[in-house]
């Protein structure tokens, strides 16, 4: 009963939030619209990253997987002249395939070894993009990547998704669908099994769970959505280069996820939204930004180890104690 009313709450929140989000860019000056776009992409990244962390592994290759999606879609549409509407989902699938391939060496490791292994694999992939001028364009990367376009019957010119508002709306739909799928996945049997594989690996094996398979599934599914985000990103920007996916950017994902908290689905989203908004507000202290991030990270580890998601609960607890103290 509780879960049913909670579900209603979610639907209600979505019913209010979604139209608001869809309407938002129309009220923003054009130079703020991009902020929303990159924020949505980051949301996709952190939520797909969370799926990987569900199986208990902390990966450092997620950003590079996003790049895989970007490169794949760019190459498919540019060099193979594939329709962009096809190249994007295909790129996401290809990214999942790359992750599947990488999972053979990587998922033999766990914990620290996986962390470092994923980092090494990511750097190796990135160096390969730099080293092979054909097809990846070398250190300069690729440019003049065809944009998404849609020929609508009532418009003379095709609708171009290089324009922020159409792209934003498309991205909003894709993000919502992705989030919904990831949410369902987590709350399905598979999510529960991943939980099991993470926290009680021996028990899982003992009752017949092939944990390697589930870890691979999480890794590849996470890669799929990262690749999807990367592919969309690349067709919006029209260019891609290897430096965009360096370890520094990956560390930001880690920071968002950790500050937001990984216990619940909403945690990483809260993390990325709060920090990105703060980031915009403190834009003039740009040179201090990494240090501010670092400090927030240290403080939140110390005082809010379960992330921002735990803040409301904690405040409620504090309030209750206050009230109890006042009454007592």
């Amino acid at each position, binding site marked *: 009963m509780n879960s049913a009313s909670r579900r209603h709450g979610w639907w209600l929140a979505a019913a209010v939030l979604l139209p608001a989000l869809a309407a938002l860019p129309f009220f923003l000056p054009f130079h703020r619209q991009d902020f929303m776009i990159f924020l949505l992409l980051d949301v996709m990244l952190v939520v797909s990253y969370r799926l990987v962390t569900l199986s208990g592994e902390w990966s450092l290759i997620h950003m590079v997987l996003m790049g895989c999606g970007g490169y794949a879609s760019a190459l498919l549409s540019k060099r193979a002249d594939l329709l962009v509407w096809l190249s994007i989902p295909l790129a996401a699938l290809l990214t999942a395939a790359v992750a599947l391939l990488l999972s053979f060496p990587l998922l*033999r490791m766990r*914990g620290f*070894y996986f962390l470092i292994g994923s980092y*090494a694999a990511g750097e*190796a992939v990135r160096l390969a993009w730099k080293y092979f001028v054909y097809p990846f364009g070398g250190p300069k990367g690729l440019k003049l990547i065809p944009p998404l376009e849609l020929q609508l019957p009532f418009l003379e010119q095709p609708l171009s998704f290089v324009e922020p508002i159409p792209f934003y709306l498309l991205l909003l739909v894709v993000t919502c669908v992705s989030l919904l799928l990831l949410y369902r996945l987590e709350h399905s049997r598979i999510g529960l099994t991943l939980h099991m594989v993470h926290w009680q690996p021996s028990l899982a094996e003992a009752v017949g769970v092939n944990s390697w398979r589930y870890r691979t599934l999480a890794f590849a599914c996470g890669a799929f959505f990262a690749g999807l985000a990367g592919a969309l990103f690349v067709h919006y920007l029209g260019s891609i280069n290897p430096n965009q996916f360096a370890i520094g950017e990956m560390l930001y994902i*880690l920071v968002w996820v950790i500050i937001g908290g990984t216990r619940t689905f909403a945690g990483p989203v809260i993390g990325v939204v709060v920090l990105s908004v703060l980031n915009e507000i403190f834009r003039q202290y740009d040179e201090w930004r*990494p240090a501010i991030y*670092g*400090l927030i990270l240290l403080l939140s580890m110390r005082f809010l*180890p379960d992330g921002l998601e735990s803040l409301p609960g904690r405040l409620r607890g504090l309030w209750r104690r206050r009230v109890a103290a006042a009454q007592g």
Partner: protein
Amino acid sequence: MELVLQSIANALVQSGFFSLWAVGLVLIFGVMGIINFAHGEMVMVGAYTVWLLYAGQGLPFPLALLAAALIVCLLGLCMERFLFQPFRENPLGGLINSIGLLFILQVLAVQIGGLGLMKHVPPAFPGTLELPFEVRIPVQRAVALVVSLGLLAAVGWLLTWTRLGWALRAVSMDREAAALQGISVRRIGMFAMGLGAALAGTAGALMAPLVRVEPYMGHAVIITAFIVAIVGGIGSIRGAVLAAVLYAFFHTFVTTYYSGTLATMLGLFIMLLVLVIKPTGLMGSRLRE
């Protein structure tokens, strides 16, 4: 022939640095099970100390070196006390804290020294050693190599022959059993971190006149240290030194005979291969998660 010998000389100098970087990292991981992502930044702080004190204030180089070791050692102790000790139960916590610190240290370096061109640290020992077969080693590099070797030997002696070293090894093998033996795991943790940090600081100080001293110099350090630590078997000091020598020779020869880009890429592939085939590395025997 000259080319081979010169390359061997180059590789030897590199081995010294690589081992110094990696040994500190391995010590900290081996004893406390914490991956210190800010290890490269500790090297950077060492180098900046030398830049400020030796190049800036005119202090004699050996003094600046000592100061760098002490300052970074202090930094390490603070990290252990405030960032790692409270998170003993959660190995990821220590890692994340070290990432937070990494950002802060980099920004501080930018604020102190600015961006732009590398910080100028003139060599304390100018001149070149001219060996037979036209092999040449800059005196500064030779000194750095000798000091590195001396430090590594000292660490080896400490770990093998002293009671402190015995306690350190005991803690790294089994923390609970060591505690039952009456060893204070807390103190040993402080000691390992202090020693590892001092080694990193010394490495940075020794290198300061030889490399780019800039806020982000730690990046290259941490990659190399990871490769070396993994190939050597994380937690094994001897493995780390062996791997450092192998990797330095590999990297030097591939760079000399093929290209630098290829050397870096192959290095990563080798690390991956080792992780897949023998995750415990060349000399490591335990798996730690």
